[in-house]
């Protein structure tokens, strides 16, 4: 575990230095634009802005970020007993010194994220839509992934990198707007009309336009590998890869482009709210493609370990490493059986049940009536060709997606 933290720290330091350099350049360019000799003042101003933003975001801490996301804290266990239990379980499994604070966001779109500059000031948040859709094992997979982010100090890195990225966007935006505003005045002033100055000015302008894009690339490239790492650790913590795999499937299937989430917060979610299921991962993505994450999780054999995840990753990525020597801190435990089926549904108020029934219908769920009297609703994501009745154990064939009702009813 500690080697994961150390390896992450080296890469984080490099990335944050690169982002800081970019920020400094933008500041210099702005200063230079105002007056060729004022470049250094621009640089200083940019660094001061950066420092102020950094201090506020670190001092404000998890409470401020959670308020931004519109989350409310769960302080009474009775409000969400299963969620609190799962967070405590994952705290033990991950070896965190204390459980993170738990927040709930009122949104029908299922998602989850974690924030916090250290283990003591960490928090995880889930949406009500997530709680309504996931069963116990799936929720455990999601929480394990988020706690892995806290444990790997990804949340600290994301706060710093996100703030720096925000500062670059802010400055560049300010500059480009100011430029448009003063364009008329520029033409009248004659003392800057020499050629060399013009070229440098264009360079400065170009830099300010490209900087946010470049910063975004740097920021997102780093977050993709962290997602694989957090998935691998989640497998190690829960010993049940299928839980996270099917949770990712459900979450990705229910995403809608959500204007409310900012570009800065996006990499912190378990699945980027702005990305959909089918899309492949590109160099502009914050997360690896969900398909890829799911197929890696599903191809892990019977051992829940970092090494098993690494092997599964290599099968799909031509032998490339993702964890590398980090598997040295491994523990090898067998994959456990799923939780009892009676626990599958979270205890929800009746209104939620009705809402779920409607959702099932909208999702075009297939329904099989078993001879024992149980009605089985088959989720649209179900890929198998048969299903075992959870009550009596008899096996039902599922015809195909185009024939929604089963042959059982006619029989």
């Amino acid at each position, binding site marked *: 575990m500690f080697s994961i933290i150390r390896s992450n720290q080296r890469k984080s330091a490099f990335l944050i230095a690169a982002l800081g350099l970019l920020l400094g350049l933008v500041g210099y360019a702005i200063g230079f634009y105002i007056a060729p000799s004022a470049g250094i003042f621009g640089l200083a101003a940019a660094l001061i802005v950066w420092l102020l933003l950094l201090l506020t975001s670190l001092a404000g801490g998890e409470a401020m970020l959670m308020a931004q996301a519109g989350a409310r804290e769960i302080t009474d266990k009775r409000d969400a*007993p299963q969620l609190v239990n799962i967070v405590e*379980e994952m705290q033990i499994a991950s070896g965190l010194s204390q459980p993170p604070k738990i927040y709930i966001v009122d949104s029908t779109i299922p998602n989850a994220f974690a924030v916090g500059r250290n283990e003591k000031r960490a928090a995880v948040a889930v949406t009500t839509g997530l709680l309504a859709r996931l069963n*116990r094992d799936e929720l455990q997979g999601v929480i394990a992934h988020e706690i892995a982010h806290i444990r790997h100090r990804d949340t600290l890195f994301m706060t710093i990198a996100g703030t720096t990225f925000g500062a670059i966007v802010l400055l560049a935006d300010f500059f480009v707007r100011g430029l448009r505003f003063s364009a008329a005045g520029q033409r009248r002033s004659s003392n800057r009309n020499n050629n060399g100055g013009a070229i440098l000015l264009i360079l400065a302008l170009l830099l300010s336009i490209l900087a946010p894009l470049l910063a975004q690339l740097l920021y997102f490239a780093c977050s993709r590998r962290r997602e694989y790492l957090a998935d691998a650790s989640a497998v190690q913590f829960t010993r049940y890869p299928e839980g996270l795999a099917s949770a990712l499937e459900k979450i990705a299937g229910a995403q809608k482009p959500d204007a409310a989430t900012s570009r800065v917060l996006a990499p912190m979610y378990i699945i980027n709210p702005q990305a959909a299921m089918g899309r492949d991962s590109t160099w502009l993505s914050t997360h690896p493609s969900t398909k890829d994450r799911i197929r890696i999780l599903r191809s892990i054999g019977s051992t829940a370990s970092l090494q098993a995840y690494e092997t599964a990753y290599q099968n799909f990525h031509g032998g490339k490493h993702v964890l590398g020597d980090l598997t040295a801190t491994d523990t090898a435990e067998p994959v456990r059986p799923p*939780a*009892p*089926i009676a626990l599958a549904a979270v205890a929800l108020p009746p209104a939620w049940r009705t809402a779920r029934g409607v959702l099932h219908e909208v999702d075009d769920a297939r329904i099989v009536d078993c001879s024992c009297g149980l009605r089985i609703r088959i989720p649209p994501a179900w890929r*198998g060709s048969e299903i*075992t009745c959870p009550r009596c154990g008899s096996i039902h064939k599922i015809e195909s997606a185009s024939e929604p009702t089963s042959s059982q009813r006619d029989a």
Partner: protein
Amino acid sequence: MTGLVILGVAVALILMFVGLYNGLVRLRNEVKNAWAQIDVQLKRRHDLIPNLVETVKGYMTHERETFEAITRARSGAMSAQATGNVGQIAQAEGVLTGALRGFYAVAENYPQLKADANFRQLQEELTSTENKVSFARQFYNDAVLKYNTACETIPSNIVAGIGGFKKAEFFEIKDEAERAVPQVKF
């Protein structure tokens, strides 16, 4: 001159002894701390079971043997916990897990019971407690492995012999029975 050399060697030996001794104490305390985590969860598990039996009695009037098996397994586990013997505790907890599994399998036949909010909450708490035990077990066994290795290897084994450090026992709950609850196949 030789006097000085002997003195130097003696001081070095004493310092080494102190260092090794303190290292062993630290490892032993880690084992104790890890065990305390498991102990808390086991106690909680035992406390939950009377509530479970009480809730279920109204629904399952014909399943006396199942209740008795659970109650017996619980008192067995509690007396094992009182002895503090890791091997005995593991064995008794295994029996309790088996009894609870048998009970869940029977409970599948009582749809009304499964819908009872109280029962669901108790089952959630029990599942969570079992999970916590199994996650805490890994930390405990890691700590035991480190401590036992120190107790066996040269030179700390000499210090362990003199200081009376005894090897700790691994905590493994025997899990022979498959989950009796039917599962959806993937």
